[in-house]
């Protein structure tokens, strides 16, 4: 799993040229790894299962388990999957380049949302409840220090 900073750079570096399919694959992979960070921070092992053909959707479901606030990125994940299908199933479409650019932006939103949740502590209960994760990681860090 690449670091969040590396994922941000990897996303920025994605271009449609020369291989559109590979570009869509990379955006999907970055999105999955972003969710893996969240799941690992919560102390779980990221699943390799798929939902509706996408590991991304299974990872989102896993990330939201016991934490309904994580559903705030549910549609973002579904839109990434939808745009992946648009790009890869209709590569000759006139809007394919724009579709890939949009997929990249949606993935960037997922990255910002998840990394924000992981960085900022003690925000609103509804959409930014990162406190439990922070507390868990703080405790882990303390234990590591003490050890």
């Amino acid at each position, binding site marked *: 799993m690449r670091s969040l900073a590396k994922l941000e750079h990897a996303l920025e570096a994605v271009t449609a040229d020369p291989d559109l399919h590979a570009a869509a694959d990379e955006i999907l992979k970055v999105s999955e790894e972003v969710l893996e960070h969240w799941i690992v921070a919560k102390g779980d092992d990221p699943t390799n299962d798929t939902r509706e053909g996408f590991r991304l959707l299974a990872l989102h479901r896993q990330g939201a388990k016991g934490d*309904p606030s994580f*559903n*705030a*990125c*549910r*549609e*973002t994940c*579904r*839109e990434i999957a*939808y*745009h992946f299908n648009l790009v890869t199933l209709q590569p000759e479409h006139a809007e394919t380049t*724009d579709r890939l*650019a*949009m997929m990249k*932006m*949606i993935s*960037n*939103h997922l990255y*910002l*949302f998840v*990394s*924000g949740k992981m*960085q*900022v502590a*003690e*925000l*609103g*209960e*509804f*959409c*930014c409840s990162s406190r439990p994760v922070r507390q868990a990681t703080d405790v882990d860090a303390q234990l590591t220090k003490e050890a």
Partner: protein
Amino acid sequence: MTTKDKYKKVAYYPGCALEGTGHAYNRSTKAIGKELGLDLVEVKNWNCCGAMEVKNIDPKIQTYLSSRVMSVAANEMDMDVVMAPCNGCYHNLKKAEYDLANDDESAAVVDRLSKKAGHKTYESGQVETIHALDWIKDAIGEDGLRERVKNSLNGMKIANYYGCMYTRPRHIFPEKDAGPGSESTSKPHFMDDLLEAAGAENVDFPLKTACCGGAHTLSDSDMSTKLVLNILKAAKLAGAEVIATECPTCHSGLEMHQIRAEKVFGEKVEIKIMYFTQLLGVALGLKPKKVGVHENISDSMQFLKQKGLA
């Protein structure tokens, strides 16, 4: 009584934001209500809904605060519908309603605090809480709007942005996802429907329910700016000239971080941000000032003039 008739006169709960940064939303909501012949009766002596600040510390106090608003509407004003245009207020009233119906402990806390405060305890189901979108959609409807449009938005390309609190969490909105005609929690469309009836052309906008970073605004401004910048750029890529909003927090965030993005990250995205009530008002023939366009941070007057709407 039909929903259409029921929504003709509703208790109006503007909430704190509409008296401050969301003033234009307040002004435009009242203006279109008057223009459409709908009666808004402001909830007497209303209080904060509990917003995120109270909820984060003690969710049951938030439930009480929201329940008091509903109690005043039901028991002191004899109203059966409360309309809250702010997504935060709307969400909190719905959450309170859900908690009171499903959590005995919340109901006990609300009862205790209501007695202490000296007002009648709100009983679950006494009022129906609706959003401004439900209000226009059900009381007037798309056909009703089409009949009343004086200045068609004439193909104005709009990205409809609903934010995160209008549809989430799904369980507090039992009327949504209830079959044909109902609102969708995954792909909300009420604002799209209304603005299309006013002549707009809605673009396909994949970030319509994505987080605007509203809760990060003070604690991590750069994160909020990046989230907003991404929304603005995605709307632009989707072909929108305007982002239509229905939440004062999202609206203020989009406007302020649009400016901040240019200052901090050197990225300027030319896109207008307007409340859906402002766009509907203009389409109904109201002057832009009447719906508070001059109160927005971003200047949309020139844009409306170019479109022949001002």
